[in-house]
């Protein structure tokens, strides 16, 4: 057994208790039977460089900044100027915004419709998606059916728009014929009436994107801990109660990610809306991004367009932040885990 030399010069290696820092090194004392230290380090070593990580992040961050921050500042600049067909961009301060919020009926209407549209799409997609996932989860045909159900998702929204335009068409559309035949529609096609056009759009979105929710929910269902289910059943829960008490809470983060994805894309993509209705008839489907498209690209009122774009951007990001926050919350994290 080697003898240890400790600061203070004491030879303690042969003491019966080995080495106890108390009494040898300053600051160490015993309290409540435990040795503690009441001191700070004299000097800290310099922090190691993390340039390494920085270099790894830089290319992506720089690319993103270039293609997102730069346009963003450009948007802000434009929104404060009167940018239209005529050359010479006049500074107008907040006039563009003032117009939007005081006398642009299409702007408020666009928001209202966008909220309606997104809410309807999300609601039905989640409802239908979860229902189908639950039914599929216990089906023998799960694999085959999921594969088939996924197909709409793989279709470009622009193509989907064209195909549905064809189906809805009042002259030769088979869906139109079907809806007429079962008495749902008169001779006015679904996109031809302000009262039904929005439903027509929502149906297309549901058709295309419910599979996403199905897929994500199925993944969630596979991770519902069986012990929780069994415990609940032993406790006397029926299947329906089991679903609400055990399955649904476990699906929570999965549904959130589905909602987040759909929410982002619902605001982002208007390909099919542009093709199907272009915002009409009578502004019934003139959701804000479509109106923005008109203002910027048809009227060439880029200043006003930028103001609309900014409001859209800000609201999207705030809502997105909200969703991500929930998403990061501990409740959403503890999935598939059983305590004990």
């Amino acid at each position, binding site marked *: 057994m080697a003898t240890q030399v400790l600061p203070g010069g004491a030879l303690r290696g042969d003491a019966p208790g080995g080495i106890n820092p108390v009494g040898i090194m300053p600051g160490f004392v015993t309290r409540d039977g435990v040795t503690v230290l009441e001191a700070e380090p004299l000097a800290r070593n310099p922090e190691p460089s993390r340039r390494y990580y920085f270099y790894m992040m830089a290319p992506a961050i720089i690319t993103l900044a270039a293609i997102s921050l730069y346009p963003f500042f450009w948007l802000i600049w434009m929104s404060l100027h009167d940018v239209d067909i005529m050359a010479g961009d006049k500074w107008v301060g907040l006039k563009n915004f003032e117009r939007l919020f005081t006398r642009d009926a299409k702007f408020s209407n666009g928001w209202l419709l966008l909220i309606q549209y997104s809410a309807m799409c999300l609601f039905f997609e989640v409802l239908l998606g979860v229902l189908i996932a639950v039914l599929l989860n216990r089906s023998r045909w799960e694999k085959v059916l999921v594969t088939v159900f996924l197909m709409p998702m793989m279709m470009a929204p622009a193509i989907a728009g064209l195909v549905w335009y064809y189906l809805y068409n009042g002259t030769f559309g088979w869906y139109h014929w079907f809806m007429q035949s079962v008495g749902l529609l008169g001779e006015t096609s679904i996109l*031809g009436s302000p009262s039904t056009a929005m439903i027509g759009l929502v149906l297309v979105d549901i058709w295309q994107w419910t599979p996403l929710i199905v897929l994500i929910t199925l993944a969630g269902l596979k991770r519902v801990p069986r012990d929780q289910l069994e415990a609940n059943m032993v406790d006397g829960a029926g299947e329906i109660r089991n679903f609400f008490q055990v399955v649904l809470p476990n699906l929570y983060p999965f549904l959130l990610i589905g909602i987040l994805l759909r929410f982002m894309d619902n605001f982002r993509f208007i390909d099919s809306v542009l093709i199907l209705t272009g915002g009409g008839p009578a502004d019934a489907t003139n959701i804000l991004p479509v109106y923005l498209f008109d203002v910027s*690209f048809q009227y060439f009122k880029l200043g006003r367009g930028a103001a609309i774009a900014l409001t859209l951007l800000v609201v999207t990001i705030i809502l997105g932040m909200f969703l991500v926050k929930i998403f990061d919350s501990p409740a959403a994290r503890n999935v598939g885990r059983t305590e004990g």
Partner: protein
Amino acid sequence: MFYVPKNAIYKRIPRRKFLELGGGVATALGAGSVAVGLSSVVTRSPVQAASSDDAKWKQYSGTKLVFMSENTPPSFAIRENLKPFYDLTGIEVEILTDDLPVVQQKVGIDLRSGKADFHLNYVQDKPIGAPFADYFANLNDFINDDTLPQDPDGMGADAWFENFLDVCGTMYTRDRLIAFPYDSAVACTFYRQDLFEQHSPDFEKEYGYRMEFTKDTTWKNVYDFAEFFKKLRAAGQDVPYGYAQHQGSFAWTAQLDIQRLMYAHGQWTEFDVDDKLGSKEPGPTRWGDESSIFLMEKWKELASVAHPDNLANDTLQLNTVYQAGQIAMQVQYHEFAASIEDEKTSRAAGGKTAYAPCPKGEASWIKNGGQAVNGTSCGIGGIGINNNASDDLKRAAYLFAMWSTSKETQYNVLKGVGGTPTRKAVMDMPGVKEARQRPTDMPNALTFDAVYDYGIKDPHFVLGPKIPEANEYYQIILTEVQKCISGQQDPAATCESIRDQVDDMNDI
């Protein structure tokens, strides 16, 4: 084989080669054209006024130009047949085609930012010409330049059909000419002669006059026809609707549609400005006056007897409805005649359809004291030159503008894909006169009587409104009229709402 410029984005793969190589290889072949950006080259050999015509045409040999066009048949046809132009001038032209909104946007940004990615632009009269008039080169400069070749038929107003040069070339001032007419779409009435004849006796019993369509047929008559057909349908007969409107999502043609009714009754226009010139500051609109409200009521009545899917039918869709035999009459652009006469796509083909001018104003409906005319509106696509380009590029572009609107080119397009000429001289080309009567190999020519000999002439022809905010104006009209037709607001409120928005748009 057609000539294909070396850097052509659009490369044609011959059928035989395609079959030989198989699709995959053909795909790879196409890859050669992938990384082509927009580029221009200009080379010039100096010429003088006294030089030969050939030298004048050839002075920019080796130059490359870009023409941004809408995806319409004339541009496809010209793009496929550029070799004569290359042989004539040695200039390579790249023709890009896009959807109208995309063309608007790209051309707009190009023009406004002082650049010239596109030297030649498709100037759809009001949607592109009216907003961007200031950015196009003044073509008068080139017409009067004796170091440039000139078209033997001339480029002045007389060379084109009446009013055509004004429609797309004159914006706000006569000092500048911004475009030459390149193709045209003029409204006229397409109706099912077979059905009209079949039902005329019954109609006459009820309404007291024959069911036929002439230049004196009024909007009131149109209402009667439509009502008659609707009644027949209600009685269970297998007949189409009598009439339909262009009130679908295409705002421009929706506005042109109601404009024809308004103009027919006392030549009502929306602004108190010279219709042929237009104005950048048109002043307060006439929407909301007695005339407009009364006619809006009539428009709504017409809608009530028309095909019920009005709000889904934009111009193209409406034509499909007519093709499918679901309406007996439409006021439609004459460029669509070819598709109506195509047995493969249309049930109205084979002599069933006859063509007449647009309906006339009904005297009793006129509230502003004006005259009753056959209100006819149009879309004339012009070809204009980007003023941001260098002088030499502009001059080279002028060569193409001139060539692409020459009577030979137009004649070729007419024969090939059924274009709609803008040059008078085309009417005298071989076979064109004969083609105006059935049987015809140029179906669009069936409309020429109604259009070129009648509709486009004063006092029937309405050009405007030429205002920089034309596109926003169309959207306002479309939305409000749709609200009116769908019963969301009454005609008076509709006209007032239009007035308020239009005046707001014009800072009144």
